[in-house]
């Protein structure tokens, strides 16, 4: 979980780079960049969950 999230985050970054290279139109570019940021956000959420300590009886 920890590393999966951190591996997803660069995918979002490369989406933003692709937006720059592929779309000259500002509106499409902005939409693609926002999608890239959403992917980065999802990766961050997964990484955060992977690092959270289990509470109560679940903790070893």
């Amino acid at each position: 979980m920890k590393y999966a999230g951190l591996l997803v985050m660069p995918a979002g970054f490369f989406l933003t780079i692709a937006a720059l290279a592929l779309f000259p139109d500002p509106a499409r570019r902005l939409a693609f960049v926002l999608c890239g940021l959403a992917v980065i956000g999802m990766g961050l959420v997964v990484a955060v969950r992977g690092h959270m300590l289990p509470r109560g009886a679940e903790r070893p």
Partner: protein
Amino acid sequence: MNAIPPMIPAAVATPIPVPLATMTDAAFALTLGLLLLAPMAIAGVALINTGLGRSRSAAQAMLGNLALIAVAAIVFAFVGASFAGSLGSAEIVLHLAGKDWSVLGFGAFLLHGLNAAAPQSQLAVLFEFLSVAMVVLLPWGSGADRWRLAAGCTSAAIIAGLVFPLDAHWIWAGGWLSALGTNFGVGAGFLDAGGAATVHVLGGLSALAVVWIAGPRRGKFPKEGLSTAMPGHNATYVLFGCLLALVGWLAWNTAGAILWAHAPLAALPGTAINTLMSASGALAATYSVTRFRFGKPDASLCANGWLAGLVASSACAAFTSPVESLFVGGVAGVFTPLLVEVLELALSIDDPTGAITVHGAAGLWGLIAAGFFAPQPGQLLAQLIGVAALLGFVFPLIYLLFALLNRLVPFRVDPDGERMGMDLHEIGGGAYPEFVIHRDESYR
């Protein structure tokens, strides 16, 4: 349908011209004077780092502040300045989609050619030295009471030798983020005159990596119930550190405005006023939020709010109005105490100084606010691309490098050392040898 341009990268080292010396003597002298005042911000952060840790780790924390700055300065002088590329000479360029993407400087090592460089380039290198000193202090505060000094120093070397120069080149030294405007018509390129991204977001993300890798302090998150409160040992250090930081930040933001935003001298009082307005708005907001939530204002969180306002101002003080700065600081001041609470209580993140929120989150907010308030059209897109680069590329890179380093030089002190305190364990003497040491209730 438009033909998709070729995307085959090719790495080459291309000679680039040294920036022209366009600075007047007066501007040079003023910028140098401001940069000599800017270390006050570093001193302030060092005091905050020490005051928010425990008394039994205070000497190790303050020695660590000095040691990390020393290591960072040496490594940056040896290799980092070359990769940052502010002295010109050469850079590594990828040819992608028909455009040049400058990804890393590749100048002479050991600051060779510094004395012969243009005055503006010399000031840029000095600014980068101060910036890297600030960056390495931010994770040091977050790792307080359990991060070993040796691991802190090696982490500082990694930041100063590779990660910071990469960021500095992209944003300040003609890299692809600063060229977004000329290459792709996206605003004026990524704007970061005061180092919100290069210094604070980078430091905040490094702090998050350190906290995750080193883990929380022993007893911080018990099996049952919420987290244990571990307040800082000296609120006076923390609040005085905030005052020192204000002096340094005024100098830092105005010097950055001259160097990176090419602001005229007549615009500098406005930049300084905006910095103060942002900090003031943030403090007022944090004071109100903590007063509302806890019945009384919280000194430590108010200090965090003040600093978050200063951090947010780093991104946009050069071109916002005072009222806009007040708004930017106010928003930072509202979310800072709430996010500190969420990170600790909901996400099990033990960050004694709050650097992840204060520097990371407030820096990101400042960068996005700069996109909203900058006069150029399309600036928000440029800022969002910069944020994506920081979160999507720089953060995983830092985490990977620190995780590898942790295998060679373990980050976390052994349990015995953590129990007796970092002062006795690491440097053999306490900061307050005449004080009675109280028993720590969290170890029962």
